[in-house]
């Protein structure tokens, strides 16, 4: 199962954070944990985007995409030096 996991960048609608959360990172983590008990955030982003990156199976990524407040779950891309 671990081998099936890929890195995804998750874009969140920051303004839609439920009032029950005090900090966005806790809301992001809660959204992540709702689809995967073991997934960890690789990065928490707040300036370039609102969101985080994590490792998920394709099924978990699809589930996450349907959670409230999720704008998109995009697979990681590889870049190259020019």
């Amino acid at each position, binding site marked *: 199962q671990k081998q099936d996991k890929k*890195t995804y960048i998750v874009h969140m609608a920051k303004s839609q954070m439920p009032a029950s959360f005090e900090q966005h990172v806790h809301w992001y983590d809660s959204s992540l944990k709702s689809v995967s008990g073991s997934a960890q955030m690789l*990065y928490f982003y707040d300036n*370039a985007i609102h969101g985080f*990156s994590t490792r998920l199976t394709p099924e978990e990524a699809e589930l996450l995409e349907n959670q409230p407040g999720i704008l998109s779950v995009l697979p990681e891309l590889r870049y190259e*030096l020019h």
Partner: protein
Amino acid sequence: TTRSPEFLGLDKSADMFPQSDSVGDVIIGVLDTGVWPESKSFADTGLGPVPATWKGQCESGTNFTSANCNRKLIGARFFGNGYEATLGPIDESKESKSPRDDDGHGTHTASTAGGSVVEGASLFGYAAGTARGMATHARVAVYKVCWLGGCFSSDILAAMDKAIADGVNVLSMSLGGGMSDYYKDSVAIGAFAAMEKGILVSCSAGNAGPTSYSLSNVAPWITTVGAGTLDRDFPAFVSLGNGRNYSGVSLFKGSNLPGKLLPFVYAGNASNSTNGNLCMMDSLIPEKVAGKLVLCDRGVNARVQKGAVVKEAGGLGMVLANTAANGEELVADAHLLPATSVGQKNGDLIKSYLSSDSNPTATILFEGTKVGIQPSPVVAAFSSRGPNSITPDILKPDLIAPGVNILAGWSGSVGPTGLSTDPRRVEFNIISGTSMSCPHVSGLAALLKAAHPDWSPAAIRSALMTTAYVAYKNGQKLKDTASGKDSTPFDHGAGHVDPVSALDPGLVYDLTSEDYLSFLCALNYTASQITSLARRRFSCDSNKKYSLNDFNYPSFAVNFDTTQMINGGSSVAKYTRTLTNVVGAGTYKASISGQLTGVKISVNPQVLNFSQAKEKKTFTVTVTGSSLPINTNAFARLEWSDGKHVVGSPIAVSWT
């Protein structure tokens, strides 16, 4: 770099550029392979205290501590979580888990953008001179995002996230990915946020030229930089046994070939493998190449590796011949054995000699460094080309800058070829790519930012673009290495950067964050896609008509749909632009020049009167196209001039 400051006129016009104090307030962030902090290019002699706005850090890790930063290199971070998540833990015996550069690329780009002055720089005596970055007094912050196994978007985005928070003013990114839509491309997404914070993001256009539609980093909030040559060359001639000489280039330094003609063999005839001509690893038969010069064809494996393969097999030297894929483009390399690179035409003639002479012989004559080569600049064949595959209505690249055979700082942990078998260590290396042209523009943008702190990133880019030149001093148009013919705006964008003119552009085409959001509306982006990019709720106004034709870009890309132009009909496209005066009063007149077959271009009004600085004036460009075959292109140029300033914009017209 040792030649580009003179080539760009930075030396003769030093008094026109901002004083060191104001440039010292500008911070260039470089996302790349890290930095070799001991490079003399990062000495901080004469620099004042770190700007109070700076919030960054110098992170510790493998062979790197905060003591490696100073008043020049003010920040250094590394981002490898995404890399490690995919490829496993970083092997610290092979690469530094720190900002330290084990590759050389990052040290090269960072020193090109903002390196200090270093006297007596050279690579084995080649390109000797005083090396300096474009903005010698600017501060440099490096963000290591590329590792042995590549550069991952989660790491790149994390670095951009930090760079924005740290307070950089310019972001230099000599990397690229595929051709994703903007809302899927981490570089474009991060660059949008940077732009909103007033940070100019300069990116390399890519090295996938001369193929059309080969550009990367084409988002309109990014400054996309292609590559051109300098007026410098490193000639190394192939002298054949039949008395003929053929020109090539080389950066080889070491024991020269014996002073006599040597047996000469084509690699394809000294190998049992089907691709023996390419000099791949272990492909040459030692008995057939020992003691000889070997001709290898360019392609597939690294150029310098071919030399290593010939050397390993016992060859004494190598001639590296371009094929059709590279044409006449000559890229010099610091080969491990005596070697020279020749263009396709010369390569074919040499191969003809090899196949026709029963006892072919040759030698290589190294001539060192020559400057004053004309014509220059010439668009590099490798430089990626338009049209823009994501948004054909935005002309890209934006401009070109020096990117061929550029000398700049290098890592102390790798040789100039980058090969693990290369034991040599150098302070400076000479390499080519749009990776090298991008930091030239980043550094020049830093100079403009220092001179005009209130200018937006779009205004700085506009100044760089509208003052770029498209003709040599003799009046002839810029050339393209790939074709040998005149280059077009799809190759050079607005032209070659001219920083002295860019300091005083007269007028600029400015853009705000709201303009870019309207651009996304014109692309029919969904609310969710726009929110991803803008990081806030934004809805396009359903009552408002958004048009790409009104997007205030400093260039024009006109696309006529041939299916709408049947039976000889014509089509009309209208474009609205707004110019902002950045100097005093002036009267500007419009003129159109270029290839106007099949197209009529008019400007209304033809005269713009500005009475004071910051005043804005709007005009309309109407382009009428006749019915022409699909894939036809025509190119023109709009210029506004008050007699002192020339504000130029390329116009590319395509029938699609």
